[in-house]
């Protein structure tokens, strides 16, 4: 296995202080290899989003270490697709997508051109001039995905990015994501509640469980890509994962 891009060691995280202190994560060890697609599943509230927030620097661990080693020379080390779209309402769609490019020495026209490419990837090229409030929930989520893709991050963090989409669009974007990772060798950390989605995308699925949360199970998926969703081997792994998850929630 190649060198790790992400390494959590004995990670602990708690919110609040004193009486109100709640430990969300404890003793969590996890590494992600370069170019790996890691999918995280687990019950609501277990700390999946929190883990991504730690990676991007929005939350500070209370103990343990986090190491991120993005490829040197990449345009952006890391980008996050939030669980909610979080578009900036005062910017048109195209300028929302261009947002992350503004520190990088590109001219406005160049940034918009890049943004349009990002929008084309998620199938929204013709909505470039709209305001966010003129979009549907699923369209907003796709704009948020384009915004993260536009900065060409070496590590892409995605928090339930496709959950607001119809199954047809979702599968299209899953294929698109597989194409992008195959082409660019990006490392992806992807959170989802959809087991079929997990097994379709993942090189490895990690189950977070417990209170406080830690890595409870891990399944490596070595099936060749592009994967067929109805593939028997894939469905077998999905069944195994579902059983694992229901056992975990029964235990609690």
């Amino acid at each position, binding site marked *: 296995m190649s060198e790790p891009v992400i390494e959590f060691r004995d990670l602990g995280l708690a919110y609040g202080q004193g009486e109100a202190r709640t430990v969300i994560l404890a003793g969590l060890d996890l590494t992600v290899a370069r170019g790996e697609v890691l999918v995280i599943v687990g019950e609501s509230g277990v700390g999946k989003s929190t883990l991504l927030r730690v990676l*991007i620097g929005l939350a500070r661990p209370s103990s343990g270490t986090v190491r991120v080693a993005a490829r040197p020379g990449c345009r952006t080390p890391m980008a996050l697709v939030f669980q909610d779209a979080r578009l900036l309402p005062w910017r048109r769609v195209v300028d929302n997508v261009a947002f992350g490019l503004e520190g990088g020495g590109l001219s406005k026209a160049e940034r918009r051109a890049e943004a349009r490419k990002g929008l084309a990837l998620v199938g929204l090229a013709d909505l470039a001039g709209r305001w966010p409030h003129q979009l549907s929930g699923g369209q907003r989520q796709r704009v948020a995905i384009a915004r993260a893709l536009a900065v060409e991050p070496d590590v892409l963090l995605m928090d339930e990015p496709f959950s607001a989409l119809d199954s047809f669009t979702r599968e299209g974007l899953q294929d698109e994501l597989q194409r992008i990772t195959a082409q660019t060798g990006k490392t992806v950390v992807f959170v989802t509640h959809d087991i079929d989605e997990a097994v379709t995308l993942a090189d490895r699925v990690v189950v977070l469980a417990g209170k406080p949360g830690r890595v409870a199970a891990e399944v490596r998926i070595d099936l060749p890509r592009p994967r067929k969703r109805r593939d028997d081997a894939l469905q077998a792994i999905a069944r195994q994962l579902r059983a694992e998850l229901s056992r975990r929630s029964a235990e609690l």
Partner: protein
Amino acid sequence: MNLVRSTLLAAAGLAAFLLFWEAMPRLGLVDPAFLPPPSTIPAAFLREVALGVWPLAVASSLSHYVVGLGVGAGAGIGLGLVSGMSRPFEAVTAWVVRLLRPIPGLAWVPFAIIWFGVQPSAAVFIIAIGVFWIVFFATQGAVRGVDRDLIEVAQAFGFRSPLARLTKILLPAATPGILVGLRTALGQAWMAVVAAEIFGVPGVGQRMMQASSLLSTDIVVVYMLTMAALYGLFDSAFVALQGRLLRWRP
């Protein structure tokens, strides 16, 4: 309600108001010296214009107004942003603000005269103070109210410095709230103009004072209406600008 209907209703309301006003002195219900009927106002207006007093007073007041508004709003937005972004700054200024805030514009007149003399800058100072507080509190509140989630978006994309946070998120997100404050200030500043000119700086306020000491109430009304018209003009222009700046809103 459609546009034609609402315009007609507005015109009818205004006409009824003028009729009532005209009837009061004409029917002998009040002394015309106390309340000049509106039909006498155009003549008074023409006299003021012919004397050359009206254009001078308006030009002078307008310059006080615009500069005072600019200075007060600029300082209010600037300090409001800093105070909204920085808890320490807010803490340090908390009691200074409470000390200075309740002082009415008129109370500053003696200091304005001592510091600036009977000069336009003294009038500008009085107007700017009135405008400052309104815009300051509106800006501070608007910045405080900005959605934390959007600030996180900027951080996640690497914009972590206070300046980046300000220009990328806080300022655009706070713009609606700041504009509400500015619009209030637009009206407040005209009131301050009168206060600022009563001590002898030439302008609409001064002229009103002169006329009222001579009991020329028709001339007072001319300048009241002049200010109303100027306010209406500025406010309409502002609303148009506001609509353009906030066209991203549903």
